[in-house]
Structure formats: C-alpha cells, structure tokens
C-alpha cells in the first residue's frame, strides 16, 4: 500500500480496485466520528455534566447542596440564607460562623451560604440567581451585594465582562443579558462558536477533571476549590507584608480609579440589580441589598458626588422594591483589608458577625420584611 500511495502521491492514477473505496470510507468515518464526539459532549453537558460549562458555579452549587443536605437531618426544614456577590463577598462573608448562632437565636436550623465569586458583579449575580432558581434552590433570604463602582458602567462594558465568557453561558442566559442591555452581539457569536467544538472549548475543565497537574495553575478550573464548604474563601495571602499590601492597594487603585473617574450611573449593571429585585418580587423571595465595606483609602478615591449618586440610586431601589439596604461601606478600618476592598480573615469574621446580628437576624425575624 505504501508503494501504491507513493504512486498516488506522484499524481498518477491508481487503478487497484477497492483502495479508493477503503480511503473514502476511512475519511467519511473519521468525519462522522469527529462530529459524533462533539455532539455526544453537547448532549452530555445538557443532561449529565452541566457543570463542565461553568465549573466555578458548579463547585459553589455543589457545596451549597451538601450543606443543605447536611442540615436536612434536623427536625425542621432549614432556613436558607444566600449571599450573591463578587470577590469582596467571597473573601468577606465568612458564612460558616453564622450557622450555629443563627440556629440558636432563631430556634430553627439555618444554612448560610456565600455565593460570592471572583470576577463577578451584578450581571453575574443575576445569572446565578436564575440558575439557582432553575435548580429549585429558593433562598429564604437573599443578600445581594451591590458592587458600588460597577454601577457607573453606563457607557462602557461592565468590569465583570472580562470573565463573563460566552463559553460559560446557556442560550437563555444570553437573552437575559440582552434584556439588561448588555452588549451581546459578539457574545452571541462566540456562544454559537463555542458549541462547534466543545471538546476544545471546554478542554481546561475536562483536563482539570482528568489530570489537573498537567495544566498550569492559571488555566485550571479547580481554583474555585479555595472556596470552603460555606462558599467562603479565606484571604489567599495570610502573611502579607505591609509592602505587599501597599502594592495590592496600588493595584486596586489602578483598577478602580479609572472606573470611578468616568462614573456615569446606569448601564447593564444597575439594570441587573433591578432585575434581581424584580425576580425576587415575582418569586416572593426576601431580598436585601448589601454595600460591602471599603477602607478609608478606597473611599477617598470616589470623586465628589459619586457616592451620593450611588446611595440615592440604592435608596430609590429600596423604596421601589421595599428591600432593606445594608450599608457596610464604613464598617471596617484600614488594617481589616488586604487591598482596600478585600477583607482579611479577621476583618471578614468581624464583618460577618455584625452582618449576622445587625441585618440577617432582624430580617429573618421581622415579618414586615416580606416579599
């Protein structure tokens, strides 16, 4: 066959019967199997392994289900408190600390879960709420972090867009984004492309499952395992020196100062917050908006009048949707932060205790705060 292929390769026609048929069949079989393998993974992702699409969300919801299942052993159905948010929430809300005290105070089992995610913002929170409800997870109390600087994304792509990849989304979620005026033209195109070769699109998630050590840490999808069972992630730099903290603060300044300078209220992020409250109202879920702590230095980066705009906007939402506002912006001091807006462990503990006592308990106890 090699000699016959060489003659074929030289351009002279091959007249041995059967061989072209064998080659044709091999080529067609290979095309068919490649397409079938891609389709098989698509079907698998829809029916059995949807977590492959968004491993970070999948990890969080798996932890949440485990906690709920653990608490199901008690006599009454546990009350569920979920906080949606960004990395500020992920590092700042030490949910583990509240289960027992709240259970004792309220006289019934309470599960508190931190659904903060790195790189998230109100748009991602909106999508996460949709997914939780679709999976039948209905919080008794939903705390919604309002990432204040991101409310000024009226004339630019939201900050969280850099991690809001099309590959993470389902089709109906692209529709949700369109509803809040999120720019979806390129996203939709990438969404369709992501389904053409799902083995390629989701290769990092697949390889993380198969053999994570053959991938560099930066592209693995298991970094969400830093989130503990309650969804809280401890400060990743516990021994940070003052110099390190200074550099981290500078990094935060570079990231946020530009956002705050060009602050213009509106855009997809503020619409996303409104959408979340609309859904809560429709689903009769108690909700509260939370402004996470910021250090005095961080607070000094707000141009004149911007914080007032944010507060006025949040107050409007409070009136319109009858939701409480927890303004924690000034709750903590400079040493409680790693970089001006992410709490270190001690700061997270104090913030969580105060949030629990000052906000969560009253909200769970007070029938006036009803949907």
């Amino acid at each position, binding site marked *: *066959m*090699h000699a*016959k*292929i060489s003659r*074929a*390769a*030289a*351009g002279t*026609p*091959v007249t041995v019967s059967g*061989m*072209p*048929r*064998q*080659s*044709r*069949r*091999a*080529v*067609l*079989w*290979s*095309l*068919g*199997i*490649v397409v079938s*393998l891609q389709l098989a993974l698509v079907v698998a992702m829809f029916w059995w392994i949807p977590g492959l699409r968004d491993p970070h969300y999948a990890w969080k919801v798996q932890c949440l289900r485990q906690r709920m299942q653990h608490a199901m052993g008690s006599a009454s159905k546990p009350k569920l408190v979920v906080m949606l948010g960004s990395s500020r929430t992920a590092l700042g809300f030490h949910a583990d600390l509240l289960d027992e005290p709240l259970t004792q105070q309220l006289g019934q089992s309470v599960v508190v879960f931190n659904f903060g995610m790195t790189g998230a913002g109100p748009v991602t929170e909106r999508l996460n709420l949709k997914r939780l409800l679709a999976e039948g997870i209905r919080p008794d109390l939903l705390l919604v972090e309002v990432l204040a600087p991101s409310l000024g994304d009226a004339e630019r792509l939201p900050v969280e867009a850099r991690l809001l990849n099309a590959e993470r989304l389902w089709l109906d979620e692209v529709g949700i984004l369109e509803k809040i005026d999120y720019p979806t033209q390129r996203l939709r195109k990438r969404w369709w*492309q992501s389904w053409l*070769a799902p*083995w*390629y699109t989701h*290769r990092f998630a*697949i*390889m993380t499952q198969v053999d994570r*050590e*053959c*991938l*560099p840490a930066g*592209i693995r999808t298991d970094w969400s395992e830093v989130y503990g069972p309650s969804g809280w992630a401890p400060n990743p730099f516990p021994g940070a020196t003052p110099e390190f903290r200074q550099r981290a603060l500078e990094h935060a300044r570079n990231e946020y100062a530009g956002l705050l300078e060009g602050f213009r209220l509106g855009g997809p992020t503020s619409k996303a917050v409104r959408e979340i409250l609309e859904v809560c109202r429709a689903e009769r879920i108690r909700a509260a908006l939370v402004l996470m702590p910021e250090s005095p230095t961080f607070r000094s980066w707000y141009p004149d009048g911007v914080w007032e705009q944010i507060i006025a906007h949040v107050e409007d939402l409070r009136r319109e949707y009858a939701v409480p506002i927890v303004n924690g912006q000034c709750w903590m001091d400079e040493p409680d932060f790693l970089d001006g807006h992410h709490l270190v462990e001690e700061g997270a503990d104090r913030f969580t205790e105060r949030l629990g006592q000052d906000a969560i308990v009253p909200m769970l106890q007070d029938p006036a705060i009803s949907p």
Partner: protein
Amino acid sequence: MLFSSKEFAIFFTIIFCLHWLLPWARVRVYLLLVASFYFYAAWNKELALLVCISTVMDYFVARGMDRYTSQPVRRLLLVLSLVANLGLLFYFKYANFFLDSLRQTLQAMGAEASFRPLQVILPIGISFYTFEAINYTIDVYRKKTPAEKNLANFMLFILFFPHLVAGPIVRARDFLPQVRRPKRWDWIRLQLGVQFFVMGLFKKWAIADRMAMYADPVFAAPEQFGTSALWLGTLAYALQIYCDFSGYTDMAIGTAHMLVYKLAQNFNMPYLACNVSDFWRRWHISLSSWLRDYLFIPLGGSRGGEWATCRNLMLTMVLGGLWHGANWTFVIWGFLHGLLLILHRIWRSFSQRVPALETAQQSPPGVALRMAITFVCVCLCWVFFRAQTLPAALTMVERMVVPSLGNSIPMHPRGILFTVAVVALCHVLAAHGIWKRVSIQLPAPVLGASYAMVMTLAMVLSPEAGKAFIYFQF
C-alpha cells in the same frame, strides 16, 4: 493565519470545495493563486504585494536567462536576481542586527556611535520564499530546469499557501510539473492528506504547545532554576521545536495532498540520528539539502581536502544558523553544529581505521549510545537556539553542566516524561514500519475512528489558543 486556527479551517474548507467543484485546470491554478495571495495578505497586504513583485521579477529574470544564450548576460541576470532576493532578505531581516552589532563594536572600541534602527516589519516566510526563488534562478542558470513560461504557474510555485510561510523549501523542478498536471479527485490522496493534517495538528497542539509550558519559564530566567529543571526544560524544548516544526510541515503536506500536490518530506525522525551528520539528513531536510546544493557544493564541498571541507562545512552551518534569525545565538548555534560535524568527520575517519571500534559502534548498544550522545549534543545546541541572549545561553549551559541548585520546573515533570515516552514509542513504531503495516490491515471504520480520536485528543490537550509556529519567525 495559523493552520491550527478556525480562520484557516474556514478558509481551507472554502478553497477545497471550490477547487474540486471547478472543472477547469487553469481556473484551479488561478483559484489557488488568489487564495495564496489572500492567505498572506490576511497578515499584511503591503508585504503580500512585495512578495508578488519579487516573484514577478524572478520570473522575468529566468525568462531572460532562457532567452539569452550569452553567458555574461545570463550571469548578470543571475546576479541581479541574487542581489535583489538577498538584498530584500538582508534589509528586512538583518539590517538592524548588523547595525546594532556595529554600534556595539564601535562603542566597545570607545567610539561614539548611534544608529537609528530601521522601522521594518519582518515579512513572514521571507527566508523560505527567498531561498525558493534563489534555487529556481540558479537551476535555470545551470540549465537544470527550463524557465517557467507561465507567470501564474511560477507565482503559484512561490506563493502556494501550504508552504509559503514556513516551508518545506520546494524545488521548482519538483513542483512546477505538478502545477501543469491535471488534477483528479483522489480518495487515497485525501486520506493521506487527512492523516498528515491530523498528525500535524496533534504534534502542534498536544505536544509542542504543551512542552512550551515547561520550556518557556525555564528559558525566560535560567539563573533561577536548578540543574535538573534546566535539563527538563531543554528536553521539553527539544520536543517542542521538533513537534512544532514537523507538525507544521505535516499540516502543510496534508493540505497539499488534499489538493493533489506533493510537498517534499522535511523530517525523518531526527532524534534517531546516530551522529550529527545523520541528524542533518533527517532535520529540516529541505533546508539542509538546499544548503548542500547551493552553498556547500559551490564552495567546493569536500573536494578540496580536509581543511577546505571543514571550512566549507563551518561556513555553511554558520550561514545556516544566521538564516534562522538575526541574533548571535543563532550564529553560535550554527557554529556549534559546524564544530560537531567537523568532530564527527575526524572521529569517523579515526574509527574506520579501528575495525573493533567500528564494529562496536554498529552493535545495538553502540547505536543506542551514539543516538544518546547525538541527542544530548543537539539538546545543548538547542539552548543557544532558544535562549534570548548569548549570556543567558551561557548561563544556562553552565548551570546544566555544573550541578546547581535552584527552582524546580514549574509544573510536574510527569508531563514531559510521559510525552517523551509517547514520542519515543511512536518513533520505534515508525522506524520498524509497524504503523504502515498495521494501517493497511485496519478496517476503514477503525482507521477513521483513530483519526477522529487523535483529532479530539489534540483538541483536549491543547493548552492555549493561537500559539504561533516557531519557524514563522524565520
């Protein structure tokens, strides 16, 4: 556009379908010409025009050499072609390098010197298509091949997109007859093309790009790594460059086969070489044969005695190194290979006088030892090829030879060792013809499934999107 990109997948699907739907041979040639121009212009339109202009110039020069029988005129035309082609190559690729070297030399001598660097973009593939043009005009001059009369055919020879940007360096006498030959749909060629393309894609994505994850951090800061990490990083790079370049070549060959064109083999399991001379008969075969035919032999080859042969070898390898890039590290790499070739000549002439030694070398342990020594020498040379600067290369070699403490390789070395085992196994299977024998026996569904699995595995193992081929920079 990269062969491994979705843009190329769309581009080639369209060209492939049009090529086979069009029944006219000439129209197919024009289609491929337009496609090749588009392929290059997708990167840079102005430089695509430059390639076309220099190609047209060579066409007329060759036609002139065919037309005029006067030797001085023919020689003048040849010189014109060489000066134009090498001039363009020198300007775009080497001018800044030599200016910078001159500046540094003058400054070292205490003179004031500052030369403003030229603002040039290096046209991709310039080293390859320049050499193809040169081999064509020289062959026409030597009357080894007649000048191509059809401009479109000649332009396709230079611009044919599968080999345009990174070879293989094609000889006109091999390619031009294929252009003239009518093309017929051939399932066997299509299967061969698919096989080559899939194999190339696997080498690029699953091996080369993965090995880059190990090699890049080590070569970026060799002074931070320990001896074992440096050796592992070098081993990773040896695999990376081989699979990157041979993977590209396989995809080029596969693409050409699907259009019923044949490109020359460019690699023949070079890491199975028993000596450096054998290595150069297996590595980048189109370049080494070009250097042999158009540089080494015209310089005198091995006809002028031992000293002249060694000089010619060294000159050829140094220029071959310089061809790869405008950096002293490439020159040193070429020099080291020249030195190894000379040392091999000396050793061979010595061992041929000692029958026992010759016998021992041919025994299986002797062959294995020679392969190992050759591989280690080639790897040490790769350090210079890959290093950013000469001091970095020297630091790395020193730390590889003298046991040094430092960081270990950033990722688990299991990945490299497993890849080495797989590549070694594939080499053994190929060297013994096992794959060829087995593939003939396999039923079509199994063969098709194997292509599909390799393709899917390549997709899953691909670490990053859009990593350029190493040889594109040459």
